[in-house]
């Protein structure tokens, strides 16, 4: 499978870069940043939610990587380790805030609508639905929300989520189950489910 080959090639590159960094090559960390900054940003934004501090979180992740890379032994994939660091740094940011929750930084006015909606009505409906989902996400615990967003929005597998949050797959399944039920119930209660369905081939 091509994706498996790509992944293996990326792993080899990461391995070389980490080794180079450990040997004192400062250029290697820049390369790791170039290869992984998009992914880090994506994971971080799904953990912390819409935020003006995303820039800080991504920078903090690479500060942490710089400090802790010598402890990475290569037993797991570098990306797995990086996801773990990202989730931890993002959760620290969440815990530092006075107001908890997903929507602590921005107002609902800034929630993006659906760019692909054809009519104004559809756009408004889509925007309200997304706002409802954001509010529902805001109302559940950090643990459940992180698992939910990493799986449902970031598209990680159950195993990847488990590794990123440092727990077992069964715990992830359990948290995901509860998060899904709570969010679905909330969205349904508010009557925000879309009127149509999309069939997605993955």
């Amino acid at each position: 499978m091509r994706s498996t080959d790509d992944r293996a090639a990326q792993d080899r590159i990461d391995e070389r870069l980490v080794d180079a960094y450990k040997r004192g090559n400062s250029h290697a960390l820049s390369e790791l940043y170039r290869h992984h900054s998009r992914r880090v940003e994506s994971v971080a934004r799904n953990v912390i939610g819409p935020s003006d501090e995303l820039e800080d979180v991504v920078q903090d992740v690479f500060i942490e990587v710089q400090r802790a890379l010598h402890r990475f032994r290569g037993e797991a994939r570098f990306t797995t380790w990086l996801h773990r660091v990202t989730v931890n740094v993002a959760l620290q940011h969440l815990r530092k805030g006075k107001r908890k929750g997903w929507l602590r930084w921005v107002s609902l006015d800034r929630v993006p609508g659906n760019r692909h909606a054809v009519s104004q009505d559809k756009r408004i409906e889509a925007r309200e639905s997304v706002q409802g989902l954001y509010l529902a996400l805001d109302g559940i615990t950090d643990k459940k929300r992180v698992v939910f967003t990493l799986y449902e929005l970031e598209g990680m597998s159950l195993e990847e989520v488990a590794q990123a949050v440092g727990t077992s797959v069964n715990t992830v399944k359990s948290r995901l189950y509860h998060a899904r039920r709570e969010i679905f119930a909330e969205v349904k209660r508010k009557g925000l489910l879309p009127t149509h369905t999309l069939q997605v081939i993955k």
Partner: protein
Amino acid sequence: MSDTTNDTMCPTDGVLHNYVDERSELSNQERKAIDVHLDDCAACADSAVELRRYRTLLLRTRVPGLDAEQWQVLDERVQMMGTEYVPPESRFGRVYWGVAAMAAVGLLAAGAWHLLNVAPSTASDNVNVAKAPTQRQRTSAALQIGAVEGQLQVADVGGNWQALRAGEELRRGTTLRVTDGEGRLTIPGHARLRLAANSEARVLVADGHSFFLRLRTGEIGCQVDKRQPGQGFAIMAGRFRATVVGTEFIVRHNNRASVTVRVTEGAVRVDEAEAPRSRISETTTVVRAGNQWRFAGGNVDFGPIAERPTAPAPQAVLKVEEQAAPAPAVAPVAKQAVAPRNTARKARPAADPAQIEGRKIIIHIPPQRMPDAEVDRLKSLERLLFGPGGRESREQDGTDTAPAP
């Protein structure tokens, strides 16, 4: 299977959630069993339809990420934080500091109060990254303007233009413009700027560490103060970004049609700020004094400033060529200085061995006037790409001979 669904028992919520999730671990057999059940059970079929709508909502939900401008600023911030290796704190180090701490306690007991001010450093203290201001600090930070000359205007909160005066503050989001004549201003600790007529620029970062400006249109001349480690100065224009390595340069942005960077003193790094993360290094060019870099009509031209013909300064060029291609003759520096069009785009990611296989990499490092830091950077890149033996093997090819000065 028996605990989840069968012909007589409705599937649980969790199973239905998994059923509508294409990535779930449900087997084909389990899915078929649920399909059969849904044909007979209207309540479950309705639930499944609702859950599909719910998944539709999830699929179109996206958390907003960084925009292009924020990526530019983040790239600069990461560049500035330094990427030096942070060695692990050794066991000896820990024992040493443990003993030192005990000694310090003893001294404290003895009343040596002045030793209280001596804090032992740790490995992580050597990282200058932590000193970089955070986003919140940057947002609230401001720089007081020194002297102002000419017709410089600044937009207030309501978007009205007012004359800029000395002593006012520049902060993130401040927009400056010059409509007639030219305007000059001094930003203490950073630079003296000159905006030509019909120029407009917006401040991206303005604090003690860094000054980043986006030139929307027009021309800006910069005379930059000597940079300290960790200090940054950059002008963004269109897709490109000029970062100070040296001291004096001009960026001209012709309303998205072209971007020109002329360097009159020192050196400036130019790259494509909106390139994908993995391609930034490919698009980087260092423009040295007496040279100009110009992007127009989709092409990049690079060479001596036309008005001031001077001997071209040595350039470092990283080229990737097909293995099958004949080894190129060693080109004189002057020819290399005029970069082939889209050379940067043809290059491959520097540290990607998978893409390097079957190709030959040539790094020209002219021996004269190349700053030590630049030489170190290129050597480090070379080591990263080839390992310790790589250079010798290329020298045997005879393709890596640096041109005579």
